[in-house]
């Protein structure tokens, strides 16, 4: 009984001190890299929003489909790169992730968050939307959000890549990427990403693109910066 207690105490102490250490160290290593693709990507089609005149007026010329966002130099935007193995485990974040519905578009297209991290969904449009996440392991839900309705506060309790859809505007499509780790980056328009504060060690890095799937590679971080580039194979259409 008593021994058990001491063991518990020890474990707890170690854990907390470890956290203190990670928190104390301002900048560990950073992983940077670029995500590109080879081959011809699917055409990004212009979205016909004529159902919702308000949104149609906002986007002239019309925005294009975002399932594959190719940039100059065959870079890929909105690819999520994260540590999928080797991570020491990181305390869940408490700052809420904001997800906007604006001009019949999801902003950002891909929202990355940690398990149990608060997620707030806003409707900035003068028309109603419905948010319909289609998870397989988490619980599915489907709520409409009339204009001026309060934000929807929610969170996800299991890691998953969750496709999100608005049925009222079927072209509205995005992703909730729910991760166990706090070490992740999302590629920008130039296809580059940065993962900060990575303690030294050997990690498995995974890059995920909603259309082209995932790729992994080993990366070793020792104090300074490490680089990891990914190259996806694009299928036409």
């Amino acid at each position, binding site marked *: 009984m008593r021994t058990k207690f001491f063991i518990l105490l020890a474990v707890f102490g170690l854990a907390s001190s470890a956290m203190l250490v990670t928190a104390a160290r301002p900048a560990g290593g950073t992983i940077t890299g670029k995500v590109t693709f080879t081959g011809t990507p*699917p055409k990004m*089609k*212009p*979205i*016909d*929003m*004529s*159902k919702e005149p308000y949104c149609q007026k906002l986007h002239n010329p019309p925005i294009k*489909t*975002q*399932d*594959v966002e190719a940039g100059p130099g065959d870079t890929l935007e909105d690819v999520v790169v994260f540590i999928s193995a080797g991570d020491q485990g990181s305390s869940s974040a408490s700052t809420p992730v904001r997800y906007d519905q604006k001009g019949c578009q999801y902003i950002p297209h891909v929202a990355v968050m940690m398990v149990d991290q608060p997620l707030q969904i806003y409707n900035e449009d003068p*028309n*109603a939307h*419905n948010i319909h996440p289609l998870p397989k392991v988490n619980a599915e839900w*489907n709520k*409409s959000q009339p204009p001026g309705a309060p934000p929807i506060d929610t969170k996800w309790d299991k890691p998953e890549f969750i*496709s999100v*859809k608005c*049925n*009222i*505007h*079927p*072209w509205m*499509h995005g992703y909730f990427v729910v991760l166990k780790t706090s070490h992740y980056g999302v590629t920008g328009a130039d296809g580059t990403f940065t993962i900060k504060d990575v303690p030294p060690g050997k990690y498995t890095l995974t890059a995920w693109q*909603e*259309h082209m799937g995932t790729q992994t590679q080993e990366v070793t971080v020792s104090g300074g910066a490490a680089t990891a580039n990914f190259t996806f194979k694009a299928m*036409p*259409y």
Partner: protein
Amino acid sequence: MGKFFAILLIIITLVSVYPIVTHMWWMPEVVSAHGPAVDHQLDETMIGSGVLFITSQFVLAGFIWAFGNHKGKIKNWPGGHKPVVAFGIILVGLEILSLSFVGSKVWASMYITKPDPNALHVDVQAEQFAFFFRYAGPDGVFGSIHPDKINDGSGNYFGLDPENDVAARDDIVVGTLTIPVDTPILLTLHSKDMIHNFYVPELRIQQDIVPGIDIPLHFTATKTGKWEIVCTQLCGLGHYSMKAYLQVMSKPEYDDWLKQQSGD
């Protein structure tokens, strides 16, 4: 109390009829070839049943006025019930005959007569909660539909497979039903998920779109302009917001539009 009831009934009847006589709220303009026949049919029915409505309410009011709290010897309907029954059967029978005769002709013209062989063919895909329209494109052939390929995120609302299906590559998919005026149109209605409906009040057309069935629907628009296509079959939480626009253009305008669409 009888007199009060009678007067109230008469007032209610007159107030009820007034907006209909003055067309205070009425059908929108008619823009389809078969539409006027429907309107005519509705007007006829309105007159016939309107007369029935007013007379029966007034008779009821009159009797209540006359015999409310009336004491003394009761009177029987002169001539007994047989004439009344006969009157009812003949009256309604005639109305039925005329209505169903004329009515079925109108109905037949909409649904039973075959569409014009060289009608412009447009494919309609309904889903929660929008319509999308597909034109065959330059090759004049529709690509085949593969449900497993459907992906709204990549704009593949019809489940086309351009990779392996040449006919699908030039198909034009838009969110507004754009058609030339005075041209026979043949729609093929598909639904992805729920039962939806294709309703354009101005066309006087309403047709359910049932998943698993391809339903043909033909009409001819007789006026250029822009109207709403709405869903009238309960299909989920966004039912009230499920709509698209119908854009009727002059023939040349339409040709330009089509060129420009197949351009990109």
